[in-house]
């Protein structure tokens, strides 16, 4: 799992939670750093990204890059600044889940479990 958020506390907390869930977590503190991690061709099952980072909606570019991977990871967007523009952009990018901060952690956990499981099932069915 790749977690991208410019708030260190958020990154640290989410990393802890998802490592307890059994994920191997890589974190990045900016969209640019996250994109570099993706470019390094690391395979991720899940990418969880903030939207507003070094610039407004920087996370959308990261999401776009993540979607270009084959197979694309489960893509989850978190933001405290949802707008018609960025939610519409997320829909058009086929983001898997869009959560507005402050989000309920149990709900986020359940969404990740469900989406990651769905992806595994779909991959097995397609093989």
């Amino acid at each position, binding site marked *: 799992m790749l977690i991208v958020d410019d708030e260190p506390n958020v990154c640290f907390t989410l990393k802890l939670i998802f490592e307890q869930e059994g994920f191997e977590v890589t974190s990045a503190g900016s969209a640019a750093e996250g994109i570099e991690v993706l470019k390094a061709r690391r395979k991720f099952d899940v990418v969880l990204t903030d939207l507003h980072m070094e610039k407004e909606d920087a996370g959308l570019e990261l999401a776009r890059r*993540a*979607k270009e991977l*084959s*197979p*694309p*990871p*489960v*893509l989850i967007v978190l933001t405290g600044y*949802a*707008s*018609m523009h960025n*939610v*519409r952009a*997320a*829909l*058009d*990018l*086929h*983001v*898997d*889940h*869009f959560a*507005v901060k402050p989000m309920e952690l149990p709900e986020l956990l359940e*969404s990740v479990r469900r*989406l990651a499981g*769905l*992806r595994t*099932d*779909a*991959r097995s*069915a*397609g093989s």
Partner: protein
Amino acid sequence: MPSVEYIPLKSKNALVVHSDLAILSALQPILSQRGFIPILARDLPTALLAMAQHRFELCILSMAITEKSDGWALAAVLRMCFPHAFVAMIAPEPDLLMLQTAINTGVTQLYLASDPPAVNAEAILRDYSRLAAGHKLQ
């Protein structure tokens, strides 16, 4: 929509769920002409039965199958059953919450209920074809 590689099914079944018979009647021939086998449902029980009997590549849903906004629940179940399907939701002009709900229930794209069925059908089929060909929706 789950982030899985698009794998087109051999049977191009299209599920259309709408309470308005006129809209179902308008969509059916357009889908047939484009090589789909349209399976129509005017209510949730019929839709669920169809889902139990067929695999679907394309699903076109009304947001309000009944007077409640039950299209979202059906979309979420469709996404669980058919991870690779293109799920089109016909809905009113979306607000922020509607867009977020669309994402979180696995809807691929939203189309305006105020547009004529033929316009929506063409837009849906265009977007479906682009996605199937590996392109992103505009």
